[in-house]
């Protein structure tokens, strides 16, 4: 509790008094007084529950926050948040609020609610409550000071808890999605005896590059591949890092005795690479996948010939 006193003093020193003058309080507040004040505060908030809650919802709507939710939903959530808010002020324990914040985040994140909105509503509530305190204690500034000293740290803690809970939930979802993307892994396909193709679609980050290379190397061993065609048509951007990953993949494949042909370098990508000065001369590159496969067949000693003209018109054309 000694700690509580110190924090209260510090807060008071940092924050100018809400009234016209700052009133020093010799020897106060003592911890017991803080607890008493908080109790008083809680009963005040309980008494004015419906009015303050409505005020809060009104200002939330006014500020155009939580637009993804209906009015009733906002009201229901507001009630729950208000009650946990008061409970935190009363008990000093944020565990229940943490759980509620997680649960709330889980429900509203899929609906596109943003961090700014969640932080916004909590700060609004803090503001609404603080205003009601101003109103109630405006006649006695020294008491108001003490009430705010008791209220502010707790309110900050609550805002913090909710924001952190929300962000953590978001991060969890992002991690989950990354996992999902990773599992949509790139297939290593054998198109001919000893010829593999690796079509890469999407962004190549270091982690993915690593996974791709490992997969390809295992594929080379399993299929005893001599030639690999890596098609990067579906890679949106190739910069120095990505080019470097490609070079590594090619080198590693070569160590396992396979020749790599990279295909699908669009004219834009080729221009970018030349501009930023990436040297791909050590790599065999061919414009499109078809050309790559033809070259690979040539390397493997295949010759593809058309034995006869198709007699029926091809259905697709």
């Amino acid at each position: 509790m000694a700690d509580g006193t110190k924090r209260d003093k510090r807060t008071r020193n940092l924050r100018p008094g809400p009234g016209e003058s700052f009133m020093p309080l010799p020897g106060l507040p003592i911890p017991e007084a803080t607890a008493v004040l908080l109790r008083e505060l809680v009963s005040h908030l309980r008494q004015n529950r419906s009015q303050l809650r409505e005020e809060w919802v009104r200002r939330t709507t006014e500020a155009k926050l939580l637009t993804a939710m209906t009015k009733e939903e906002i009201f229901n959530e507001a009630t729950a948040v208000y009650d946990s808010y008061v409970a935190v002020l009363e008990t000093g324990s944020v565990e229940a609020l943490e759980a509620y914040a997680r649960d709330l985040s889980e429900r509203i994140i899929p609906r596109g609610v943003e961090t700014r909105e969640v932080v916004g509503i909590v700060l609004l509530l803090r503001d609404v409550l603080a205003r009601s305190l101003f109103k109630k204690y405006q006649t006695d500034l020294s008491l108001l000071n003490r009430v705010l000293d008791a209220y502010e740290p707790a309110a900050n803690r609550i805002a913090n808890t909710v924001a952190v809970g929300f962000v953590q939930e978001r991060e969890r979802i992002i991690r989950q999605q990354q996992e999902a993307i990773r599992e949509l892994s790139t297939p290593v396909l054998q198109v001919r005896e000893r010829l593999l193709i690796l079509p890469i679609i999407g962004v190549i980050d270091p982690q993915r590059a690593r996974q791709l290379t490992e997969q390809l190397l295992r594929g080379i061993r399993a299929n005893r591949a001599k030639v690999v065609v890596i098609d990067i048509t579906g890679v949106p951007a190739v910069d120095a890092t990505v080019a470097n990953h490609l070079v590594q993949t090619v080198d590693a494949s070569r160590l396992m005795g396979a020749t790599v042909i990279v295909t699908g370098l669009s004219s834009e990508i080729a221009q970018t690479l030349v501009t930023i000065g990436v040297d791909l001369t050590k790599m065999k590159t061919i414009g499109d996948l078809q050309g790559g496969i033809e070259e690979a067949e040539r390397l493997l000693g295949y010759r593809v010939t058309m034995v006869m003209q198709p007699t029926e018109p091809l259905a697709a054309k």
Partner: protein
Amino acid sequence: MRVPILKQGSYLIASIQSALSDYELLQLRDDLAAQVGRFRSRGVIVDVTVLDVMDSFAVRTLRAIAQIAHMRGAETVIVGIQPEVAFAMVQLGLTLGDVETSLDLEEGLALLELRTKQGGSHDGQS
């Protein structure tokens, strides 16, 4: 333990059986250099299938083996580099330079067959 070097026709096959110390690597280099001359071999295969680690010294020694053998008239192929080893090597920036590599012993023999038929020139694949 000395690495056994098998003679197979005009080729030498050094089949590494366990992880090698630096000293054993140098011994392998010297043994191969001597035997390439003694058997007038046209090709050397170093099988590294069992190695699950390749440090810079090993890579440098393998390169040295290839260069020495080349000077004495033999082509060298390193065979059996494991996927994990290959990946670690490129990550560490260890390269075998112009030394030929193949998936396994069979591939290596086929590659040597091809190279020596072409007259033993060492001009790479491209």
